[in-house]
């Protein structure tokens, strides 16, 4: 199971990587913005993407739209982890192609539940 974590905050990437490690996942790539994320996706197989929304250069929504336009990535599970949790935000994210949504602050149980849900999707 190979993850890609996309977030401009090194702190948040560490938090998510530590959480994934605790859940038994060790194959994790990291990217600092959406553009880097797209590069990582082309480097090798990715089973699940976890992305932030607000990032410089290419934000999470732009990243997901670009990802969905790539060959063979239309059904790649994407989990968005963000503080943007107003109703309109969630609608926009789902329209862009997000599979599921985690609102910060979050617990490791929430991350586990959401990963299980997107993998079962």
């Amino acid at each position, binding site marked *: 199971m190979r993850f890609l974590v996309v977030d401009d905050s090194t*702190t948040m990437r560490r*938090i998510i990587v530590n959480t994934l490690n605790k859940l038994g996942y060790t194959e994790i790539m990291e990217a600092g913005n959406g553009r880097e994320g797209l590069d990582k996706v082309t480097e090798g197989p990715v089973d699940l993407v976890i992305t932030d929304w607000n990032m410089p250069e290419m934000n999470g929504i732009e990243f997901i739209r670009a990802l969905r336009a790539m060959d063979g990535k239309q059904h790649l599970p994407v989990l968005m982890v963000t*503080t*943007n949790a107003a109703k309109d935000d969630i609608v926009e994210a789902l329209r862009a192609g997000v599979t599921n949504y985690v609102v910060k*602050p*979050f617990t490791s149980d929430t991350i586990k539940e959401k990963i299980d849900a997107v993998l079962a999707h």
Partner: protein
Amino acid sequence: MASPAPVVDRHATQPLIETLRACTHDVFGTMVGTALAEGTPLVGDALRPQSNVVGQIGFGGSSSGLVVFYATFAGARAITCSLLGLDTADEPSKPEVADAIGEITNMIAGSFRTRMATEGDAWAVSIPTVTMGSDFYMTALTDGQRTMLPFRMDDHEIFVELVITTKVRRT
């Protein structure tokens, strides 16, 4: 001709202050893994906390202002160690501390924005900025209301401030 000074209705801003307090508890309880003790809120800008690391995020929309997070170096290091899963004996770098305080500020302000959206307050928020140093003073270029919420995290005092400007009352 000078613009009229904004008039802030204390009763109107009280729900915002309570919401910000709840968001701060939520972020620390969930992400930092520690409960915060509360102090008495301070209104106005007469009393400034002794802080070395300050994160701030602006918001604008139906009302505008700032959410500001204050910590000492020691407090900011403790928060960083908790967030990153480091041992308390570890010494995080200054960029790690700055990024961690930026993320804490982002989560508090982001939760605050989301909760207020359910009350009909639609805001856009800025990216966080973090200032680190030993002798500086943060001031907002507004005549709005400033409310400082003091908290204690173990041996560390931290503060979360809401600076808010409501609509100008025209006479």
